[in-house]
């Protein structure tokens, strides 16, 4: 966490509540995007995003900068809020119960080359394929490749072990490759 954020959190805790606006402005897009992606519903995503920030505000004294960045802490709150919301709708996200699909063997070097190539046509296909993935799988890809979070940070957010996150990411990557290589 940067010193600016540390200073802002201190100011909020000192009674300057309007300083929280800075944190909302900084992180609202990231939280909202993840929520929209998970729910597929703009209204629901808006509601959960608001709840996330309010919860973060009320629990700000519990935040410990030594244990991780503010963004990771905030995303963990967002993830829990989303889970609670989905539980209310009797739809528990299967993130922690992802099926370990059996994936046919593929050459690792070929997969690396495939995902590193600057092919525009392949990029379009890949973006389309991402939209067809289950939201919980896309969430892992988002957190890792888009949010640039480490495996440890994703583990902190989702509650999965870092090793499990790594294995799941490998499987998703391989499945995408197998789906697209023959197109």
């Amino acid at each position: 966490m940067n010193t600016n954020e540390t200073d802002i959190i201190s100011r909020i805790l000192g009674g300057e509540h309007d300083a929280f606006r800075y944190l909302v402005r900084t992180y609202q897009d990231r939280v909202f995007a993840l929520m929209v992606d998970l729910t597929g519903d703009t209204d629901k995503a808006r509601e959960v995003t608001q709840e996330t920030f309010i919860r973060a505000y009320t629990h700000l004294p519990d935040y410990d900068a030594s244990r991780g960045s503010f963004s990771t802490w905030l995303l963990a709150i967002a993830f829990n809020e989303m889970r609670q919301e989905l539980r209310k709708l009797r739809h528990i996200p299967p993130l922690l119960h992802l099926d370990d699909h059996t994936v046919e063997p593929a050459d690792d070097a070929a997969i690396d080359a495939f995902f590193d190539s600057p092919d525009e046509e392949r990029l379009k296909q890949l973006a389309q394929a991402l939209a067809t993935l289950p939201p919980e799988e896309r969430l892992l890809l988002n957190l890792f490749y888009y949010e640039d979070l480490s495996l440890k940070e994703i583990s902190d957010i989702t509650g999965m072990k870092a090793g499990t996150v790594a294995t799941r990411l490998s499987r998703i990557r391989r499945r995408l490759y197998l789906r697209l290589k023959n197109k």
Partner: protein
Amino acid sequence: MTTINDNHQHQDRLLRKAIGRYHGSLPHTPSDMETDIMRRIATTVKPPAKHRPIWRYAVVAAAAAMLLLIVAIRPTSSEDKPEVAVVKPKATLVKPNVSLAKPKASLVEPKAEVARTAPKKASQPQPTLAQNPAVANQPIKPIKPIEPTKPIKPIEPLKPAKPIEPVHTTPSDPIPAAAEPSAPQSLLAANHDRMLDKMGIYANY
């Protein structure tokens, strides 16, 4: 299968681009989101407290004080109890010590035996004949033939038992066994007489 590590973020450029593009296609954050959140915070949400309120500590301290008081009061009330109740357990405590002395002594002996015998087995493995050069070089003595043992005498058959002669009794004494009572019976009779004497009743009434 390669396992993803943190360095993979910097590879997989195509995947990163694709995810970025996918994110670009998602609906944007509503413009009034920030205002809504801040309004809710200002109106409904309590401000975060940097420190826990003092009354919580006060409640915990009061509860602890109550507990201490209860603990402190209890022993003083027990002092009023009679001393007999305290003395009795002391007497009972002495007895087991005396009775336990014997088993202790009996338990020590087997341990000593184990200590004497066990190290011998462990520390001195007996060498085989092949390993011991002194024994291996000695000429092997001829084995003496085993002498035949003396023949066992056949057991003589037991002599037939003599028939028991019938006891002759006179017709005037129909129950001879009852005429002379056995020792315990005579003692009982004597006791019985003594009891009757004490009670003022004579046996020869």
